[in-house]
């Protein structure tokens, strides 16, 4: 608890998490407003379209997660941190926990905010099925796991630019472009982590390789593996 409280103080005593929070929620809710306001037939806008901005929110969450640790390396505060708290795995866990919790809250606020904005502007899509609930309430869970993965990548790379480039290029380009590989491309793409996360949120398509909850479990497992690698490396490396 002490470690979590410490990491919370560190996170919120700088400007970037506030900035990222506003941006992440603003993008998701903003896109929902824009799409419903410009739609000729708001009543028939579906949840998928309403939450189209969540991809942008995810980018911001990835950046925030990576920055939470790379700035520590950039400014040398990681040494001050390990000097005050020599248990490195616990520190990394606390950091991932705090950033993950913030991302969870941001995801829920953004998704329900987008849904609420849609309601106000006359969207009729309700939260009737479990799939609808997954699409809206699930966003926070995906944000949280993504943030933890971003912390892990940040801890491994240690440089803001490098870590953010890898995260964004991977999630925006590589996962989708991989389907260009002849014959096996589409099969590989099905097992990409962020594709799996989107499948959980309801973007399954016909005949999915994993069900929604299995997809989430798969995404969580990849995040856990990344975190474990980061923990081992951070413990072995000189600070």
């Amino acid at each position, binding site marked *: 608890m002490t470690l979590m409280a*410490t990491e919370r103080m560190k996170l919120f005593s700088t400007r970037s998490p506030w900035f990222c929070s506003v941006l992440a929620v603003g993008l998701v809710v903003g896109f929902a407003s824009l799409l419903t306001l410009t739609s000729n037939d708001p009543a028939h806008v579906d949840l998928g379209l309403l939450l189209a901005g969540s991809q942008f929110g995810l980018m911001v969450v990835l950046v925030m997660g990576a920055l939470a640790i790379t700035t520590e390396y950039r400014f040398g505060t990681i*040494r001050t941190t390990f*000097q005050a708290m*020599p248990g490195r795995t616990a520190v990394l866990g606390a950091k991932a926990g705090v950033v993950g919790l913030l991302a969870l809250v941001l995801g829920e606020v953004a998704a329900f905010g987008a849904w609420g904005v849609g309601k106000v502007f006359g969207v009729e899509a309700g939260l009737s099925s479990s799939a609808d609930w997954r699409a809206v309430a699930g966003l926070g869970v995906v944000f949280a796991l993504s943030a933890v993965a971003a912390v892990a990548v940040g801890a491994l790379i240690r440089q803001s630019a490098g870590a953010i480039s890898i995260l964004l290029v991977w999630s925006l380009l590589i996962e989708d472009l991989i389907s260009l590989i002849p014959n096996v491309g589409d099969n590989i793409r099905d097992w990409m982590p962020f594709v799996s996360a989107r499948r959980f949120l309801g973007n399954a398509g016909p005949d999915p390789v994993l069900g929604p909850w299995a997809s989430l479990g798969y995404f969580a497992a990849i995040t856990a593996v990344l975190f474990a690698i980061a923990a081992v490396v951070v413990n072995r490396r*000189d600070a």
Partner: protein
Amino acid sequence: MIEASGLTKRYGKTLAVDNLSFTAQSGRVTGFLGPNGAGKSTTMRMVLGLDTPTAGDVRIDGKHYRDLKDPLRTVGALLDAKWVHPNRSARAHLAWLARSNRIPAKRVDEVLELVGLTGVAGKNAGGFSLGMSQRLGIAGALLGDPKVLLFDEPVNGLDPEGILWIRKFMHRLADEGRTVFVSSHLLSEMALTAQELVVIGRGKLIAQTSTEEFVAMATEASVRVRSPQLDQLRSALGRDGVSIRDEGDSLVVTGIDAAAIGDLAAAASIALHELSPQRGSLEEAFMQLTGDSVEYHTDIANDTAALLATGSVAR
């Protein structure tokens, strides 16, 4: 107390710290002296468990740093004053440090007061001058009221007032019974600050002694003599146990004291223009001691030449 035994750190092919053993006692300011790149900072990072030694170990009051519970309450350290987030206020920086080691929040204001930063506590640390950053770092080191304190080059880049402040501060901390371990490449500074010295060169221990002994051990008492009749004086002094060295228009004589030289000169009717006993400086002691370790002879001689230059500037 800090005890290092056989401490070794290897980066690839370079041996940064080589089988280093020393102790720093409580109630004393122990200077950690060596030229730039001698391995001082690496050693300090190993003391704090930031870098893992390749071999050997270092203990603080018998424990490894990583095994300390709430380490800031046992060991305070300032390794680099720039290790703060530039957009975090001085108070916020100390607040999270305090929280991490269960130190009461009011202690933050106490240490800010102690180092004289109360007025700028709400300002972002990124805007601080080097002197202010240094003070903030010291505030962080003192936060847990620790028994052991480490400072890496604390006077680097400070103005004379700041240097004096730090020097007095070190003495006060040691007088309170704490272990103060402070590194420097400025020999003249260490002569004023440290009571004990751990001297290293190229990662190896050269000497661990008291500052006084260190100077006495390496510098023989000598006497400088100037005279218009140098040749006559030279032959008058020429006897067993006396060595004479020319230095410009004067002689530097060892093995005989100033009174005896005066008597001899008077007996031989030689006029003296100067007869002054010389006290060895730390720089000379350092040169002399390191000059003896043949393995590093040429390298250290060059290093010390550079040191002498910086040392005289600092004075």
